[in-house]
């Protein structure tokens, strides 16, 4: 559904138009029918990539296909729904008038438009009293729901969402998650960016991690996490302050707990504990979460 090959984008900022590389050699393939999470720190290039895909930004070089067309072509947007981060709309319109405006731009009219509006508002739990109020009175959460509703009004094949859960309360996040899953069940491909990594882990089929304008990891959650070594958390019984730590072992933030980076370090550490007469109370193994991996990648990029 989305194919990106060798995408590069440079911004020219300031009076002297100094170049600043925003995206470097991005390669992405988003197959049809999946939920694809796009994660990275602030300023990594998530929104830039999304805006290139929606035709809002031009790009320097690379080959991009969105639903079979170049994002520069109007045709690419006929099968596309998009909700920007912190969506803003015409605040003199009511929520329902806004839906009607965007629906007509998407080619909907009359009964069909009404039907679709009801469907979209129901899906994001926005079909309430406030939908007939002017948008200037809306809270951030209400705006986000209306933003999502307008993006699905045309029943797109591809839905691109920029931080759809940012600024929402837990109920709102759950509603958006459920809406994404429901749309995906109906065959909609969803490509979205998010800071909320627990949500990304729970609903995404595949994930791409972008740091400093480069894709650093790509794959399913399992593929990404299993590519990292398992960590072992060991809790010791008595004081072990005099214990000399073998390489690959570091103290945890909790007293009496140790983190071993691999199985060999674990075995050496356990042996040395037993030799020193220190009891082992608990051994736990953990795969790093997306957050751990992202933090590690950010640290690597900064170094």
């Amino acid at each position, binding site marked *: 559904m989305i194919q990106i090959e060798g995408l590069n984008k440079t911004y020219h900022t300031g009076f002297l138009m100094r170049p600043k590389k925003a995206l470097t050699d991005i390669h992405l393939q988003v197959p049809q029918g999946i939920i694809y999470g796009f994660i990275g720190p602030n300023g990594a290039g998530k929104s830039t990539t999304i*805006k290139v895909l929606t035709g809002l930004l031009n790009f320097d070089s690379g080959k991009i296909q969105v639903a079979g067309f170049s994002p520069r072509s109007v*045709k690419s947007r006929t099968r596309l729904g*998009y909700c920007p981060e912190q969506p803003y709309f015409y605040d003199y319109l009511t929520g329902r008038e806004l839906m009607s405006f965007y629906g007509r731009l998407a080619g909907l009219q009359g009964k069909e438009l009404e039907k679709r509006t009801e469907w979209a508002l129901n899906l994001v739990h926005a079909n309430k009293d406030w939908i007939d109020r002017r948008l200037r009175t809306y809270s951030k959460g209400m705006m986000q729901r209306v933003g999502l509703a307008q993006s699905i009004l045309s029943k797109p094949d591809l839905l691109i969402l920029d931080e759809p859960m940012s600024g929402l309360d837990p109920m709102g996040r759950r509603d958006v998650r459920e809406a994404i899953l429901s749309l995906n069940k109906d065959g909609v491909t969803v490509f979205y960016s998010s800071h909320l990594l627990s949500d990304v882990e729970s609903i995404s089929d595949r994930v791409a991690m972008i740091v400093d304008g480069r894709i650093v990891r790509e794959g399913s959650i399992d593929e990404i996490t299993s590519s990292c070594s398992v960590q072992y958390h060991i809790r010791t019984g008595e004081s072990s302050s005099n214990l000399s730590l073998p390489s690959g072992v570091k103290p945890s933030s909790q007293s009496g707990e140790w983190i071993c980076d691999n199985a060999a370090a674990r075995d050496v550490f356990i042996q040395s504990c037993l030799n020193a007469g220190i009891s082992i109370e608990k051994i736990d193994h953990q795969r790093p979460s997306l957050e751990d991996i992202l933090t590690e990648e950010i640290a690597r990029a900064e170094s």
Partner: protein
Amino acid sequence: MQSLSHIGIIALNTFRESIRDKILYNIVFLAIGLAVFSILLGEWSVFDRAHVIKSTTLTIMSLSGLLISVFVGISLVQKEIQRKTVLTLLSKPISRVSFIVGKYLGLLGVVACHLILLTVVYYIILFVTESSPSLSLLSAIYMVFCEMAIVVAVALLFSSFSTPVLSALFTLGVYFAGHLSNQLLEQVQFVKRMGEVEGFGSVLMEKMAIIIHAVFPGLYRYNISSNVVHQIALPDWYLFWQSLYALGYIGLFLAIASWWFNRRDFL
């Protein structure tokens, strides 16, 4: 066909947005107030009262149309960009050309409504003051509309790439240059004929006046109030040719605005 529909939807939305603008009402009420004030001007003037009322009101129409174009029109595109409503709008299957043309037609609709309202006020004043209202005045009002159609296109062109303040200054500049370019050329040629400036200076002055006259839209062509008020006949097909002239400039300005808008990044 789809593009026409998009243009219509954007134009209607622009119209709805503009008529909620408080500045618009200030300009409209100021124009109506000044039109009514023209009755007093007619009374005080040493010239014929009807002539003063007619020419003053036509000037008010032109200037208030300019103010609407500058203060309402210029912020239209910038507002979309600054409030980021443009992100959602341009992610729909509409071309950026449709966006620019839709915005233009929406604002032109506002100016047209303003002129219609002032025309009604104008005729009421003429009836009340028994200043021989005639239908021929409508041709002068139509010319004001054509002039405003060009000014709105200029305002939209500048607002597609510049800040509101600069766009306002540029638009006012084009308006005054367009009104004065003919006089400037005539003056320069007169001075040259009289031999007051000679040599390279004279050639340079004349060339610059010719360039200004050629580049800026000749808005002076649309000021036919003296012809209409004093019942001086216009050349045959004058309105037709001036309408075509306006269409040419509008097309050119909108094409440049669309081309520039197409190149823009929206962050």
